[in-house]
């Protein structure tokens, strides 16, 4: 008999929401656990073995030297490393610090022990090779299950590149862009079943850019609708700023542009 897939689930700096998205598969969790060898999951396990892994889900972004150390250590022992959720994938909201004026957050910097050193907030692929991404803030629970099923069945999971709008139309939602909301559905990768728009809320782009996003056309559309460049930029950078190549679409240079981050 083939030995079970050795799995680890870890969190760097983050909110634990992505790890919860695995646990919150309440009906499937016990069956899933019987199919894998869950060697490490410090969030809910006291004994964690980290000798070697076939598959690791990594939540969170790199925001301290501790994060970087753990990430590198685990990467070296892991065959398939998965960036789980927006922080690991794009840096999510904490990475918006790249476009925040230092004077707005500097005073919040506490004196710290030697062991904790702040690091530029960055997604994990800025530091190590990432094999797959399960995007989203939070990631879709079903997508996580489908991913594990694919791996167990020897299939290669494929990224989903279509924009949110496709599923949104399928769900017969009213278009929030037409209703005057800054909805990022047209330029954002879907496979979330347009969950925010189903709930009445516009897409903020947490799953990162779709495969064929046309930023210039999209930004011009937003300008026509009367949104200011400042508002557009802020919104576009909040969840996936480090993954959107939007600079060429803006021609004015206000101070937010001057703070172009190191990874753009």
């Amino acid at each position, binding site marked *: 008999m083939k030995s079970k897939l050795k799995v680890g689930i870890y969190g760097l700096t983050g*909110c634990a929401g992505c790890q*919860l998205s695995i646990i*919150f598969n309440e009906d499937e969790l016990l069956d899933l656990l019987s199919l894998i060898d869950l060697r490490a999951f410090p969030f809910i396990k006291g004994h*964690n073995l980290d000798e070697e892994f076939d598959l690791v889900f990594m939540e969170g972004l790199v925001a*301290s030297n501790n994060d970087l150390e753990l990430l590198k250590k685990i990467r070296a022992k892991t065959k398939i490393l998965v960036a789980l959720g927006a922080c690991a994938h794009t840096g999510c909201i904490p990475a918006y*610090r790249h476009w925040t004026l230092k004077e707005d957050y500097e005073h919040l910097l506490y004196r710290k022990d030697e062991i904790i050193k702040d690091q530029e907030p960055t997604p994990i692929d800025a530091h190590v090779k990432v094999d797959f991404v399960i995007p989203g803030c939070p990631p879709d629970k079903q997508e996580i299950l489908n991913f594990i099923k694919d791996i167990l069945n020897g299939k290669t999971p494929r990224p989903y590149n279509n924009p949110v709008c496709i599923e949104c139309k399928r769900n017969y939602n009213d278009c929030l862009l037409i209703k005057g909301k800054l909805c990022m559905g047209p330029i954002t990768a879907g496979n979330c079943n347009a969950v925010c728009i189903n709930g*009445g809320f516009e897409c*903020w782009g947490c799953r990162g850019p779709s495969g064929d996003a046309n930023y210039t056309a999209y930004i011009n559309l937003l300008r026509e609708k009367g949104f200011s460049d400042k508002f557009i930029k802020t919104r576009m950078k909040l969840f996936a700023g480090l993954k959107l190549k939007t600079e060429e679409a803006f021609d004015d240079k206000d101070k937010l542009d001057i703070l172009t981050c190191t990874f753009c």
Partner: protein
Amino acid sequence: MTHTINLNHITKIEGHASLYVEIKDNKVMKCRLSSIEGSRYFEGLLKGKHYFEAHEISSRICGVCSCAHTVAAVTAMENALNIKTTKQTKELKKLLTLGERIRSHAAHLYFLALPDYLGYESALAMLPKYRKEVKSALRLMKLGNKLVKVVGGRDLHPVSLTVGGFLKIPTKDQLIELANDINELQPDAFATAKLFGSLDIPDIENDCEYFSLHDEKEFPILEGNLISAGSTFKQSEYLDYFKEYHEPYSTANFVVREDKSYLVGAISRINNNYNKLSKDAKRAITTSKIKFPSKNPFANNFAQAVELVHCLDHSIEICNELYPRQENPIQPKLKASRGLAAIEVPRGILFHDYTLDKKGIITKANIITPTAQNLKNMEDNIKKFIPSILHLKNEEKINLEIEKLIRSYDPCFSCSTHFLKVKWDK
């Protein structure tokens, strides 16, 4: 003889933390509990954002209590902009908060706390012998998630609540279905309370102030004064009473009252609001030796289990009494203003405090989480507790007892800004 306890990366808690203790001649000389999360500077990121963006951003502070941050941010903005929300909005906000409390308590009790008491490393390791209990936990978590999803549109980081009301309102049919689901799980909640009321806990007394909200109408969720056994004050006075400070060894804030640590959470809520508990919840308390008001920090687990019973009862009441109608969120008149909301969330009182300019842009944000308030008290109690367990001699056993104490607070270190790998130096 001096020796140290050094617990790097404590497991089975939310977030990352470590503990350092120095002991000399059976006396604790130094004790420091630190969050070792990377800093995310949420209050800095909120500056310059619009009033209607704060809840979507601050929700990301914590996945476990994303509804809490959403509701607190929205309510603070409503208070700033003088929006009087409808009764329906208030009831739906409560349902969202109750759903989150149910799933959070169920997850903490069974997945993080219980394994310690039954002698397992995790709930997963308990499966062969305690499958029934683990399944009960999963059912309760599923119920909490369903409540959150129906009301909030998504089970983590809810989307349907906005400043002034809800963007999408559940139907009566959905509420009836929820009420039926809750009804089915009431025995699970009661069994949880019986189980946690029967666990052997160390007999220690934590002589501090136990703070919670106090609402004349019901067991506190969204409003009320701040009270403890000896004091009462208004929410707006919180900064006069609670002081935040930073310790150099932690990325989290510490909060004290009159230089003394205090405690928030389920145990404080029950200590201060016993009369407002549902009948079932009061009946659940009678099954245990633990009585309220309790000063034993280990009793917080039982308090959470009692709250589970209460939260199911309260949720069913809202589902039965609410006949939802379509209403749009109320649009505010913008003005320079300041708004505060203190609400009860799974781990205690959560404060969101925003200052807005005349265009509704955030110029200052102050967020104080329950774990930040409890950190100092945790430290104080670890200090007091350690001498009573040194006779155990075995390092593993001592560490386990310390971890049990820490976990009974249900700390959430993401919020305040993982747990215990113990290193002993002798």
